[in-house]
């Protein structure tokens, strides 16, 4: 079911390329002479989950900030939905507002309290509705931030390393939660991450950014629920690590990537 979902999405994106919520054409962003984003073209289909990998300084965060409307671009065309939300590495909650007030901050709706309760229940925080951010754990605060983003029903959800500061166990739970919420709300997602495993576990498509350009992209057709023990996972991981310039023992496997991908598809269908 999950696999067909993904397939459906990809076919859909081919058909409705014009309706892609995110469209970037020849986007350039430069600081002085250095082009941080260099003639970048990128489409994200409705409901597609895209992960953005890249070494530090490859322009990932700059790109995300441009999409979030926090930074301007210097040239090129950029189209993003206005209904967008961002979750950053730090939860960025207003410390002086309780969890539920943070969730509906800036929303002009008739019954904010009820909406906030629903959103917090979705992320499993019904019991912390009135808590101040200072009393929340890192994972709880990040879930409030997620609820705050999703309550706006965004067409595009931007995630800037949102799980990087969490402990390993919390991160696993957050991965499951984010997939659940993504399925339910169906926003297009752009996840910026350093973590290759995370990218493979979550995304439909992984884009590797290098010096402001797309170095390569890999479509992940592994069926969900994904796990690192899944057949084919390691092959994708090795390939991505190779693209990121990490010499793993099996770096030469990258050359056989197409074969590996064939295998993957087969396994995905068997499931």
């Amino acid at each position, binding site marked *: 079911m999950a696999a067909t979902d993904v397939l459906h999405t990809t076919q859909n994106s081919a058909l409705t390329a014009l309706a892609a919520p995110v469209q970037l054409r020849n986007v350039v962003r430069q600081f002085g002479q250095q082009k941080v984003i260099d003639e970048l073209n990128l489409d994200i289909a409705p409901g597609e989950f895209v992960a953005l990998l890249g070494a530090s300084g490859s322009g990932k965060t700059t790109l995300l900030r441009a999409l979030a409307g*926090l930074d301007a671009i210097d040239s090129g065309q950029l189209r993003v939905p206005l209904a967008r*939300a961002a979750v950053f590495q*730090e939860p*960025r909650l*207003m*410390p*002086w507002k309780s969890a539920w007030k943070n969730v509906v901050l*800036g929303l002009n709706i008739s019954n904010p309290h009820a909406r906030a309760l629903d959103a917090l229940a979705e992320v499993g925080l019904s019991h912390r509705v009135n808590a101040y951010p200072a009393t929340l754990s890192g994972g709880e605060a990040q879930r409030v931030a997620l609820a*705050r983003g999703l309550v706006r029903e965004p067409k595009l959800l931007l995630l800037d390393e949102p799980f990087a500061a969490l402990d390993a166990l919390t991160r696993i739970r957050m991965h499951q939660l984010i997939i659940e919420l993504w399925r339910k709300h169906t926003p297009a997602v752009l996840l910026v991450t350093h973590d290759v495993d995370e990218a493979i576990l979550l995304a439909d498509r992984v884009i590797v950014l290098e010096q402001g350009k797309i170095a390569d992209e890999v479509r992940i057709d592994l069926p969900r629920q994904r796990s690192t023990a899944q057949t084919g996972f390691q092959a994708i991981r090795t390939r991505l690590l190779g693209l990121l310039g990490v010499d793993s023992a099996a770096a030469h496997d990258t050359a056989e990537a197409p074969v590996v991908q064939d295998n993957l598809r087969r396994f995905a269908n068997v499931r």
Partner: protein
Amino acid sequence: MSEKTLDSRSPESGFLIVDKPPRVDTNAGRKRWKAPDFVVRLLSPLALLLLWELASQTGLLPSRVIAAPSQIGGTLWAMIESGELGTHLWVSLHRALLGLSIGVCIGVVAALVSGLSKKGEVILDSPMQMLRTIPSLALVPLFILWFGIGEFTKVALIVTGTTFPVYLNLYSGIRNIDPKLIEAANTLGLNRRQLIWHVILPGSLPSFFVGLRYSLGISWLALVFVEQINTTAGIGYLASDARDFMRTDVIVICLLIYSILGLVIDAIIRTLERYALAWRPTFARN
């Protein structure tokens, strides 16, 4: 209940060995009576007071140096009963609060103007920064020439002293709001009015309270000073009058009043903070 630590000459030297028997709660069932904390705390001040009284009674401390506690107590009671103390206290309190509230208002308005707008900063900030370096008590001669020696000068001096701490702290509080929170507010689509109301003002409130505390301290200091120049009422007048008659008991009473008022106002601010800053980690975790 013994802790056994093997000495270094034992064969196991190089280890710290702790071997404690399990704890037995001997107090289970009955609670031993213990004097409350504040009673224990009162013991040493009371002892000091007793020594002071003894020294006065034996003539070791002549009353022109300092009056005996018993005499001070008697005078205090007499002053309260005759209503003398109440009248003077009211006059002082009125001065301090009037000056303080005007000063704080000016400071807040100025900080908002220069903190929230670039133009306001250009126009207001540098004169404020220049003026703040003048100690307000140094303005006394000028103020007396301008406004005479009446009530206006006294309140004006308290105003000038209390404006700047509030201005400086609130201004820096506004300017030092975490830019990440401002960014978050922008991605949430807050407009400027909402940004000021939901993010900037609550975020700078702690700094405002710091300024308010400073201002309170200064208002008290200024009060003591201005009430000694030319007054016919107020705690400061009481003190300088007592000086002329060598009434050390009255002087001590005035000092006492000043310190009690300081404590009371501090307690009020503390309560306000507890309420207004309930979200701060120190308060929120309790």
